[in-house]
């Protein structure tokens, strides 16, 4: 494991084999406590360096506009890019296999433990910290736009519309993308 500055300068190298791809996505699903996205960023960009931070943001952006779980879409898009159909399948199955087992196992355990007085506040605390991991990941994604006021305004507007005013993504996405593309054409973002 190396420091942050090295992560920035060394250029990313895609996985060399299907097995490596499968294990990489398996390692995301294995520990995806508190949400998958922060772990995907950590594994793909920081640990395995298959992608640069910019490439990750670009693939994630594409996947946010598609239906379905974002990171499962990331697995399909990257698997396809690197190894075609076998890659898409390996990435997807790698990502989903362990979480599928975790959730069934937890459902079996939950019935016995839910009543325990310590369980509820601890689970609540982990949940809030998981939200914090998403916020930290958003800050990492936003690094390239930190000095562009119009881009920051677009990000803030998207945050407010979905996070604060709870407007449906089906409405927010088309409007936000249209405005952002207009701004990009005028070189504002």
């Amino acid at each position, binding site marked *: 494991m190396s420091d942050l500055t090295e992560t920035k300068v060394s250029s990313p190298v895609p996985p060399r084999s299907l097995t490596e791809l499968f294990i990489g996505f398996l390692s995301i*699903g294995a520990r*995806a406590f*508190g*949400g998958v996205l*922060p772990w995907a960023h*950590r594994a793909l960009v920081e640990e395995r360096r298959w992608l640069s931070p910019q490439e990750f*943001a670009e693939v*994630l*952006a594409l996947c946010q*506009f*598609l*239906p*379905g*779980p974002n990171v*499962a879409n990331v697995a*399909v*898009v990257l698997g396809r*890019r690197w190894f075609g159909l076998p890659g*898409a399948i390996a990435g*997807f199955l790698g990502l*989903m296999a362990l979480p599928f087992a975790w*959730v*069934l196992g*937890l459902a079996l355990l939950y019935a016995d433990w839910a009543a325990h007085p310590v369980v509820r*506040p601890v689970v*609540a*605390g*982990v*949940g*809030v*910290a998981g*939200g*914090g*991991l*998403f*916020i*930290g*990941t958003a800050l*990492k*994604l*936003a690094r390239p*736009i930190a000095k562009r006021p119009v*881009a920051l305004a*677009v*990000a803030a*507007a*998207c945050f407010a519309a*979905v*996070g604060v005013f709870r407007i*449906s*993504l089906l409405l927010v*996405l088309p409007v*936000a*993308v249209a405005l*952002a*593309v207009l*701004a*990009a*054409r005028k070189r504002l*973002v």
Partner: protein
Amino acid sequence: MTELFLTFALLSLFAVGGISTIMPEMHRIVVVANAWVSAPEFTQLVAVSQAAPGPNVLIVSLIGWKVAGLAGALVALAGICVPSAAAAWWAGAIWDRFRDAPWRALVQRALLPVTSGLVLAGGYLVATPEGIGWRNALIAGASAAALYATRLNPLWILAAGGAAGAALFG
């Protein structure tokens, strides 16, 4: 079983931004229209799927499991995932084919602020299930700062969040 698959396959294509978008419709179909699980059971399954590590979409395999055991769990998960994965395959192919096209660079530049804002909103919603308060702000703020500024393993951050939860929410 076929009905289970088709129900979730149809929902899959509307799940832009993930499972939370279709949660109200899923509740209507699963609890009200078909009575596959009761309303309290549904809430409990949502809680379990959110607490388990992995995509929240796994709520559908818990519903499938209640309806038809392990096979039901697999069929429901395939239903919710296959259509959206096919869409991702197709969109990824187009996206990669136009790697060097000027419009792609433009769209990419436009999408970054939107993506950042949406991930931030997702984190905010998860961190404030019962409205914003100093406890949530403290735990979420400290976790975000630790992830952003250090290379600490996020598992430690979550463990600290659990300990803080026991101390503050207990």
